[in-house]
């Protein structure tokens, strides 16, 4: 956690920000990237804890939004290009690349990110995109696993994710034992952790749109990951973001790729259903 100035200073900045940024409700003027419209606000279905599902995009200033809306200005594309190169690079004992099996990513990978995490019957657990990529690498290619937060993994999840950009997030929580993982994720979302004794829901369900000191709280949606964060000056995974939140509430964070974070990812994907995939999004 960074050193913070007095509460008063934070309050002044917060007041000033209300006028400059924040969510705007202009339904008729949706953001788009190269003709692909982004649904950044969708009505929540019945039984959903929110009335309106809102992308983190809507909580950012126009300068940050502008970075996401232009693929050249978006520094996340440095990673996308890395992934694109890796897609057709042969690796491992089987002498295969991703392309050997999956061909043109723009066709074969369309919709994949939007449906993650997804129940994997063989593994008997849900697969995140990272899990799926590593399963392909070890089982099909005879290659080494990539580390969760490695540039190689971020590049590939960004490149594969981009193929679903603009498509609605739609996770299937009824297949296999997904419901159990969803339940676990829901429980984690509402469990208070750490010295600050806070749950995800305290900020991202009960207080989105409000300021925590100088930060405008979003709904904590996952539709833009992996995301280029201005703070990181780098692209990062959803699990890195989870860890950041847990560090800040002074909790002992779960590990990237842990069952806890995979369950939380499954629950969050369900909470964000209908929002457009924005990978690679740009956030503060």
């Amino acid at each position, binding site marked *: 956690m*960074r050193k*913070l*100035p007095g509460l008063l*200073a*934070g309050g002044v*900045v917060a007041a*000033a*920000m209300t006028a*400059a*940024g924040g969510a705007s409700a202009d339904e008729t003027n949706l953001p788009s990237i190269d003709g692909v419209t982004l649904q950044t606000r969708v009505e929540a279905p019945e039984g959903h804890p929110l009335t309106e599902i809102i992308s983190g995009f809507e909580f*950012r*200033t126009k*300068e*940050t939004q502008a*970075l996401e809306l232009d693929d050249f200005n978006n520094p996340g594309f440095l990673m996308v290009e890395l992934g694109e190169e890796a897609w057709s690079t042969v690796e491992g004992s089987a002498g295969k690349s991703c392309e050997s099996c999956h061909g043109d990513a723009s066709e074969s990978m369309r919709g994949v990110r939007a449906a993650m995490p997804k129940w994997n019957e063989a593994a008997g657990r849900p697969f995140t995109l990272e899990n799926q990529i590593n399963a392909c690498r070890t089982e099909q290619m005879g290659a080494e696993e990539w580390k969760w937060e490695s540039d190689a993994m971020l590049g590939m999840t960004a490149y594969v994710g981009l193929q679903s950009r603009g498509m609605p997030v739609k996770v299937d929580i009824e297949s296999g034992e997904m419901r159990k993982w969803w339940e676990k994720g829901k429980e984690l979302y509402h469990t208070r952790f750490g010295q600050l004794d806070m749950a995800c829901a305290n*900020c991202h369900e009960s207080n989105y749109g409000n*300021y*925590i*000191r*100088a*930060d405008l709280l979003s709904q904590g949606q996952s539709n833009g990951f992996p995301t280029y*964060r*201005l*703070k*990181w*000056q780098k692209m990062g995974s959803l699990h890195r*973001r989870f860890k*950041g*939140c847990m*560090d*800040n*509430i002074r909790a002992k964070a779960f590990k990237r790729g842990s069952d806890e974070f995979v369950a939380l990812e499954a629950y969050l994907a369900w909470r964000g259903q209908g929002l457009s995939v924005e990978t690679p999004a740009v956030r*503060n």
Partner: protein
Amino acid sequence: MNITRRQALALGAGAAVVTMTALPRLSLADTDAVKAAIDAMAGGATPEVANVTLTAPEIAENGNTVPITVAIDSPMTDDDYVTDVTILAAGNPSPGVATFHFTPMSGSAEATTRMRLAKTQDVIAVAKTSTGKVYMDRKTVKVTIGGCGG
């Protein structure tokens, strides 16, 4: 001569007023390093606050990546063009950010980059032309300190 604490304070205040009068449009708060960097561009003269437009967000969401654009009004011909523009961050540990070098081939004296700001502060642009003119602009950028930015 004995000077009481009260008198010393009064003298200090007087000096401050004099400085303010002598350097209109320059901030009192500028450190020696910032003044030296401006002087290095201006050759000791006081830059005219004109012709330079510095565009930066009023509030930066994160100080690690702040977009800035500088544009100078200039014909950009072989006889009269902007040669150099220095960007300074008055409140950073070291004020230098970038120096742009233009040529008549640049077509226009405009550039955009992204910079790091350690805290809320003034960003300054000082521009020099081939005819020896020096112009400047400054803009305050508020940098929000995250409450829980993760």
